[in-house]
């Protein structure tokens, strides 16, 4: 069981509708939690950290749904500052597994996140001398950093950035300018109000020649009174759909000078006389960008989907509406097939992504070791992986969270349900760290290249060898139970992915103009990239299930989820699977039948399956999703705390009273 105190207790105890769900579990929830964490020891460690943070009133999120932008920002700064003290007091390490647990626990509601990116970019892009100078200052928070790349007019296309850094040999300085409005830096986190420094990306000019985009360390605010430095105009970019706690900023530069030593110079340098020198390989930097995309997936996409599933499934077991049979009690909405068809595939997706995420992390750790050993062979594949999976996972998790929100009826729209904020946060993940469409097209480019190489008999990376080795053929399934055999559905996925890629290769080569041909095929290219990543996800889920311990019913329930994930993918993309005749219309009826059967099977374990994610009530912050299922009591109590009920009603005296007393003309 989870430690005491991690669940809020209301009088009335556990809702009997949830209690009965838990009694019926076919597997051990605690063992599944341990398996998800990577061992019982890790589970214990994580819970200890969660307990330490959640029991500390400074980290209380009790008022989060009632705060203004200013209040949220201030609270996030307060938490960030206090967290540094807490980490030291508790003896947690800055780079160990604790950080991961802390992040999950605080769910990103914290300021100074970009400070870490600032430090990482100096460590990766800076010379030893620069690292020695800046990293200690940043570690002690003598300076607060940000990372200024995106401009008002430029995001995706880095070469198009318009900020300039012109080298002045006379003073040995770079002169930084944002020459027009679209060149203004726009969006960088922590820059609007908090940061004193930033790494700014600008087009380097020496003696009138442009050398492309380079990073510079720039002080933007006074270390005395925090006022902007001369020539610097900086501020907050205004309210967003969410991330109200974050001061995403703008930055205008007018002839701001930084010393020559402030250009980050691990790979290149401007010498005092203006000579531009480049050395070493930038591939390691390329690897950093790529691995960031993988590192955000868990906290920013998969965990939010798990939380949304927890809330929606627990609520669906408590909420009763309408009758399935006349004369009976109103049914739990989780018993309606349409509700199962909304929620259970999302649950299966959350598990599928948990496993693929583990796989990707292992892959990248290995890649990092290779690269340390100066072996860059795996880079293109890793890049394709990071682009494609970042897009696939953020997109599926986003739509999953929205489905959960809408499956909770009216109450889902209350902020107190926790679902709207999960949604407005996660949707940003489809855009940041690479816009999803752009990323999928990068993966598609890799696939086409590999396919052509393989066709020409060259060696290709392991993840794409299937493109050239698959023989087409008919699916041998005869009965609906055949579609519960992984080799049957894996084959279907494989065929579909291969067909998506091979079909395109002809189209692209047939065009007269290469660029036009590419643009004319992008809709299908995007699809091909998704098909590839979807296939890999199913395959990995199958393998992960095979490797699970066959005890306490865990492997069995995971197998069901894996089947559901695979069949839901076919059920939702029938056209793509029927196209080349590997599956027939008759097969589709079998897939549908198996798929619907699985919904009823997994329904029985739905609540234990979300319990296994092991979120505390505090981290869910949901009146609908709490462990004890006292939904209505909590909703009523939380609503009373709303400022609209705690403060007077100025609108009454000013407007309603004259209106009601029919003195409209005095308004």
């Amino acid at each position: 069981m989870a430690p005491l105190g991690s669940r809020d207790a209301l009088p009335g105890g556990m809702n009997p509708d949830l209690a009965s769900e838990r009694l019926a579990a076919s597997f051990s929830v605690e063992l599944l939690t341990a398996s998800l964490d990577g061992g019982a020891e890790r589970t214990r460690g994580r819970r200890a950290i969660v307990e330490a943070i959640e029991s500390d009133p400074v980290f209380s999120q009790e008022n989060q749904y009632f705060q203004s932008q200013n209040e949220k920002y201030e609270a996030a700064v307060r938490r960030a500052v206090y967290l540094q003290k807490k980490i030291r007091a508790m003896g947690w390490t800055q780079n160990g597994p604790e950080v991961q647990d802390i992040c999950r626990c605080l769910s990103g509601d914290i300021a100074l996140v970009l400070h870490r990116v600032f430090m990482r970019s100096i460590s990766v892009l800076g010379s030893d001398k620069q690292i020695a100078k800046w990293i200690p200052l940043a570690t002690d928070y003598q300076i607060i950093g940000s990372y200024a790349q995106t401009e008002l007019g430029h995001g995706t296309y880095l070469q198009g950035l318009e900020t300039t850094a012109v080298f002045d040999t006379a003073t040995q300085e770079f002169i930084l300018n944002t020459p027009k409005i679209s060149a203004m830096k726009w969006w960088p986190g922590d820059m609007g109000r908090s940061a004193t420094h930033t790494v700014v990306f600008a087009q380097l000019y020496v003696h009138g020649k442009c050398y492309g985009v380079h990073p510079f360390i720039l002080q933007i605010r006074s270390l005395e009174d925090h006022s902007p430095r001369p020539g610097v105009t900086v501020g907050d970019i205004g309210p967003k759909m969410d991330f109200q706690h974050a001061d995403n900023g703008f930055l205008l530069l007018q002839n701001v000078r930084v010393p020559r030593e402030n250009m980050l110079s691990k790979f290149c340098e401007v010498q005092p006389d203006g000579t531009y020198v480049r050395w070493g390989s930038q591939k390691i930097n390329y690897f950093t960008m790529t691995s960031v995309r993988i590192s955000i997936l868990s906290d920013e996409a998969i965990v939010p989907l798990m939380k949304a599933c927890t809330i929606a499934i627990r609520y669906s077991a408590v909420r009763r509406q309408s009758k399935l049979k006349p004369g009976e009690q109103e049914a739990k909405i989780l018993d309606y097939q349409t509700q199962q068809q909304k929620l259970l595939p999302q649950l299966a997706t959350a598990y599928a992504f948990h496993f693929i995420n583990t796989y990707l992390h292992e892959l990248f750790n290995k890649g990092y070791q290779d690269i340390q050993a100066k072996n860059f062979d795996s880079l293109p594949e890793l890049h394709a992986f990071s682009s494609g999976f970042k897009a696939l996972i953020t997109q599926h998790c986003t739509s999953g969270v929205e489905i959960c929100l809408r499956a909770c009826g009216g109450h889902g729209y209350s902020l107190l349900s926790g679902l709207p904020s999960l949604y407005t946060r996660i949707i940003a993940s489809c855009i940041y760290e690479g816009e999803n469409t752009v990323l999928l097209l990068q993966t598609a480019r890799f696939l086409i290249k590999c396919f052509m190489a393989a066709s020409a008999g060259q060696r290709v990376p392991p993840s794409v060898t299937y493109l050239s080795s698959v023989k087409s053929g008919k699916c041998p399934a005869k009965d609906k139970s055949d579609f519960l055999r992984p080799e049957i559905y894996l084959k279907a996925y494989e065929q579909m992915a291969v067909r998506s890629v091979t079909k395109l290769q002809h189209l692209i080569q047939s065009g007269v103009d290469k660029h036009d041909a590419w643009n004319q095929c992008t809709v299908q290219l995007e699809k091909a990239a998704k098909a590839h990543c979807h296939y890999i996800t199913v395959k990995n889920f199958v393998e992960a299930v095979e490797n699970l311990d066959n005890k306490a019913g865990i492997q069995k329930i995971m197998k069901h989820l894996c089947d559901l994930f695979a069949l839901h993918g076919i059920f939702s993309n029938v056209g793509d699977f029927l196209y080349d005749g590997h599956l027939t219309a008759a097969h589709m009826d079998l897939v549908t039948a198996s798929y619907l059967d699985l919904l009823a099977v997994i329904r029985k374990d739905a609540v234990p399956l979300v319990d296994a994610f092991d979120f505390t009530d505090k981290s869910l912050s949901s009146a609908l999703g709490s462990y004890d299922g006292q939904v209505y009591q909590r909703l009523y109590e939380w609503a009373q705390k709303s400022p609209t009920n705690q403060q007077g009603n100025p609108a009454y005296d000013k407007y309603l009273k004259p209106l009601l007393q029919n003195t409209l003309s005095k308004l």
Partner: protein
Amino acid sequence: MVMNADLRRERAAATFQPELLTHVLDGGAERTRRRREIEALVINDPDFQHEDLNFLSRSQRYEQAIRKSALMVMKLREYGIADPDEIYMFKSFVHRGRPEPLDLHLGMFLPTLLTQATPEQQNRFFMPAWNLEIIGTYAQTEMGHGTHLRGLETTATYDPATQEFILNSPTVTSIKWWPGGLGKTSNHAVVLAQLYTQGQCKGLHAFIVPIRQLGTHEPLPGITVGDIGPKFGYDEMDNGYLKMDNFRIPRENMLMKYAQVEPDGTYVKPLSDKLTYGTMVFIRSIIVGDSARALSRACTIAIRYSAVRHQSELKTGEPEPQILDYQTQQYKLFPLLATAFAFHFVGTYIKDTYRRISADIIEGDLSELPELHALTAGLKAFSSWIANAGIEECRMACGGHGYSRCSGLPDIYVTFTPSCTYEGENTVMMLQTARFLMKSYMQVGSGQRVTGMVSYLNDLTRQHIQPQHVAAARAAWLVEAAAKNLQAELNHRKSKEDAWNVTSVDLVRASDAHCHYVVVKLFTAKLSEISNAAVRAVMTDLCLLYALYGISKNTGDFLQANILTSTQLNQVNQRVKELLAIIRPNAVALVDSFDFSDGYLGSVLGRYDGNIYETMFEWAKKSPLNKTEVHESFHKHLKPMQAKL
């Protein structure tokens, strides 16, 4: 500011006059003129100006909305605007398409009095409510009950001794929850409660309940009322809760035009309960129109922005292209643009049909109502789901800037998305349509012919060449498949209800296909009514795109049903891509024809003149975090940290 050069070029290259298409959308040049006249009354009125809502707190937004609503009531009378459509228009301009605290008073409380109150009750309540001495709301939904009305738990028990009803909210789940304007604004509510008289439950009835003291606005003894807290949008609306403890109202406060309770407690049954249908049809037809409008706004913003925004390279060495030139961007936006027009025409069709048959309804002829009711339930769900997803697609098509509130898109989304749930939860709506489809299918099976929108079920084997027929064939196939599966489940000796539940995924798909067919059919029918050839040509392209895109999105159904072959589907996909290129030059002119003013659109990215970046900067400078040059958090938290660590 001068117009952005890209947008000027786009407009010059259009093959038709947007003004003429605007007339088609409004229903004639005269209507366009009048709409603009009404909008001018609002936008040129300094009383309706205020700070950007994005910078205001929830309480401030509520206060602004109340202020404007109070003014609005006065000005409507001053201008003598009394036609319901024109009132709706005026209100929409005042609140820029956003909800406001008097919505339920105007849209539910007053109409309920009109249709369900006796003449005596009209005298007592209607005129005071019309004059806003009484502000009312409509309290139906409870914390534990929404969809299933019969499950409501609030009770009204008749006490013949005092000739009063005693109202109670006996459990937490019975607390009224969500009604708009209930939290802080209203002093009365129409409350739906289970009527008990002479020891028997007579089911749900409506009662007029005073909740706040006139003069002080304090809750009355026995009444607990308040705001339900912050939501996903709807900041200006005080959705409320209401708990009643032995609260007594006179017998005459039960709405008794139909059912009655006599002084001694004798219950008199109403004649028919089908009349409530009419109101539901009307409100759902409005939601179809709302879907069209919300999606049109989102398309206007995304398409204008995509014409102004340049990014990356299509060809090495060339300048960065407008992002509207990327096929993936066109594929995201143009089908949605076509959908916005389609929904507009469908919304108008339902409203007109309802008007046409409402005369019959008053005469007591309800024969056409069931089909219209079944159709609007499904179309409400179909259109709101697609518009909801479409708005998000438009927002994401605007990249990072779409996520800023200055784009207007987050606001359009959060304002629109509850319509998937209110006035009938969408899945439940789809299943209502499915019930009608199953009934029609059975009729055909028993040798009867069916008429209207389901007549395609009469002949399940004809050839399909035109997109409209192809859409009908898909619907027919899915209806048939659902009906057969339902029968198969019944044959497994399952109860009727179990069989329905385990077939409901199929049933929703059948309804979805049916609705898609109806939209294609109505869009196609509209084309012949457009007199200007250039406008008709561009609408024909959009209509074809709508139909073919629907096929390409559901290729599985067509292959599985053997309606189209893989080769034919390849041709469909190819044609969709060609249509994207054909529509591209008219994209900006098409959204211009929606004729949204910048004030109404509320978007920096969607400005008519395209001066996006300058305006964004000006907007950001007014943001709350920028009120002081150094934020107080620096002195409170950051500076001490730097000193101590």
